[in-house]
């Protein structure tokens, strides 16, 4: 009798649980009418996309790509009804690790696979003996954000930035800052440098920029850890943006989208051809001047040429983030879906990138990428 009572109670609990778990939830948010943002610029070319293959792809990696990936996923779901991709923004290091470990279908990374770290070989092993390609699909400008009530506008040169972020210039009233800003000296105030405390591809690229554009003022190493030796650390780009928003006198580097979200002031960069402010157009000009150093369909970029260029009207501090994919070695289902996703990302989704803080692909790059994507098998 008692056993029966217990059994019935347990049964009721299980039934209730099953009811909750099987009740139909929905992924369809288009009824809310927000995925195709009104007023978004027209997509830069729609493409014939061969939808199909694996229903739910997985990818993981760079946090810098998060916003772009969300736009890609939304576009992919619209173009290929019922197809999904789950992007896990856990950082470039994890992206590469989980890609080479075979846990995700492709990785997102702020830097190309490194030969000397064994990443290239590990990736080849994961792709069943075929090379992995670095496809620079997402370009996110990095803003030098600052918080100084006395400076509505600020222009920095690469050299000046290198000096500030290595501790050679410690006060806003420094004559070198005044010289770059038309001789107008700022009131004395201590400069607080805020940097990424965690390992980050943004830091890596920022330090590469400082050493390429700093005219020798940056004597420290590049790398995913900040080596400037000054300032205070903050966790993630979000933490950096928060710290700058909260601290008068602070200066830091963060992806454009974070600067936009927090309404932070962004410095103009003068690479020798006059101050250039950060916007999609100026960053696009810079990307166009970048050179590919990978071979064939591996589109690894030569960042030195990008960062040290003094092309007029170019904002050179752009973070190129890669999708790391297998050239061959996927099973047929996965290959088909990966190709479809990347094709949508490189074409239809480009129109929504700017409002998410990224730069749409210049045409020259778009066609190179599409050639590479079509070659995946």
């Amino acid at each position, binding site marked *: 009798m008692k056993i029966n009572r217990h059994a019935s109670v347990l049964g009721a609990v299980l039934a209730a649980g099953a009811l909750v778990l099987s009740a139909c*939830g929905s*992924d*369809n*948010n288009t009824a809310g009418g*927000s995925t195709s943002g009104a007023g978004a610029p027209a997509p830069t070319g729609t493409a014939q996309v061969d939808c199909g293959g694996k229903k739910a792809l997985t990818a993981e990696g760079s946090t810098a790509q998060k916003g772009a990936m969300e736009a890609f996923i939304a576009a992919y779901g619209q173009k290929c009804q019922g197809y999904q991709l*789950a992007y896990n923004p856990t950082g470039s290091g994890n992206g590469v690790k989980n890609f080479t470990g075979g846990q995700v279908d492709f990785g997102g990374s702020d830097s190309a696979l490194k030969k000397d770290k064994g990443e290239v070989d590990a990736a080849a092993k994961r792709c069943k003996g075929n090379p992995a390609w670095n496809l620079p699909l997402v370009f996110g400008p990095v803003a030098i954000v600052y918080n100084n009530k006395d400076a509505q506008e600020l222009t920095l040169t690469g050299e000046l930035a290198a000096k500030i972020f290595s501790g050679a210039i410690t006060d806003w009233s420094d004559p070198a800052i005044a010289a770059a800003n038309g001789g107008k000296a700022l009131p004395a105030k201590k400069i607080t440098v805020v940097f990424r405390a965690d390992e980050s591809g943004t830091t890596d690229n920022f330090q590469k920029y400082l050493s390429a554009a700093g005219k020798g003022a940056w004597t420290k190493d590049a790398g995913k850890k900040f080596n400037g030796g000054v300032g205070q650390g903050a966790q993630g*780009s*979000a933490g950096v943006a*928060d710290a700058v928003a909260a601290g008068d006198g602070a200066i830091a580097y963060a992806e454009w989208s974070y600067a936009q979200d927090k309404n932070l002031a962004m410095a103009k960069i003068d690479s020798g051809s006059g101050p250039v402010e950060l916007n999609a157009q100026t960053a696009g000009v810079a990307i166009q001047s970048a050179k590919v150093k990978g071979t064939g369909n591996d589109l690894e970029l030569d960042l030195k040429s990008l960062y040290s260029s003094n092309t007029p009207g170019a904002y050179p501090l752009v973070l190129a983030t890669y999708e790391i994919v297998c050239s061959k070695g996927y099973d047929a289902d996965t290959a088909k879906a990966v190709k479809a996703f990347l094709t949508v990302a490189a074409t239809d989704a480009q129109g929504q990138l700017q409002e*998410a803080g990224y730069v749409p692909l210049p045409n020259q790059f778009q066609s190179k990428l599409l050639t590479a994507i079509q070659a995946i098998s």
Partner: protein
Amino acid sequence: MTTATTDLDRPATPPAFQEISPGRKFRNRLATVLVTGAFLVAMVPLVWVIWTVLAKGLHRVLNADWWQKSFGGLTSRNPGGGVYHAIYGTLLQGLLCAVIAVPIAIMVAVYLVEYGRRSRLAKAVTFTVDILSGVPSIVAALFLYALWVTTLGLPRSAFAVSLALVLLMIPVVVRTTEELLKIVPDELREASYALGIPKWKTIVKIVLPTAMSGIITGVMLALARVMGETAPVLVLVGYNQFINYDPFQGNMASLPLLMNSERLTTNAIGEARVWGAAVTLVLIITVFNLLGSLLSRLTAIKTK
């Protein structure tokens, strides 16, 4: 014998009512103030946390979409969507964990109390369970990652999360069940034996039903605890903004994972999502606790 006379002079019992000395009154007041003060201090963070979570997240939760939809296809700049995918993940992972952990834990407790009393094996098991209950969740998660992904070469999945939660849940349930079985009076067992009923039947029909209401409460509390665990979901499964019904394949969201992931979205929309998910998680755990006490009341042995 000299003391006998003085004893006779005293009244046999002291007077029932004595004037309370000022010292005792003072100590009484002091203790009352201290105890009440400690209670209030303990309440401050609790009320504060609940207030903050509700104030920041409640407006997002009061929306039918929140409970029925996922964030599928939405970017950080699109409001709307819901956390159905994460609620499903949290409940499914908790349920799978309970299905595996509860029978094992109850059988271990039965062995410890009914069969293995004071044997060397029972002592070893108790010791191991004690150690296991002190293992931080991140260690359980990493252990399972090493076993499941590195050694066996299996993909990360929601099922792996459930297995890590099993490691965390077993010691809790073993401990509570053991204590509850111990307080089942021996007279009940003896009465049963006297009627010629075998030991296993005594355990199944007499001992366990007597302790059942407490065991269910213990299971529910343990479940509520493991459902909020963050380390296993961070290590063993990836976030997914879409609904994934399959625990063995692909990424699956859960509420703690969703909060961790959306924390990267720095704008107001992301903040609302994180706080909304926090309210949802608190609500679900509260419901589980309430359900636990309700079930224990329903299954309690009627004592006339």
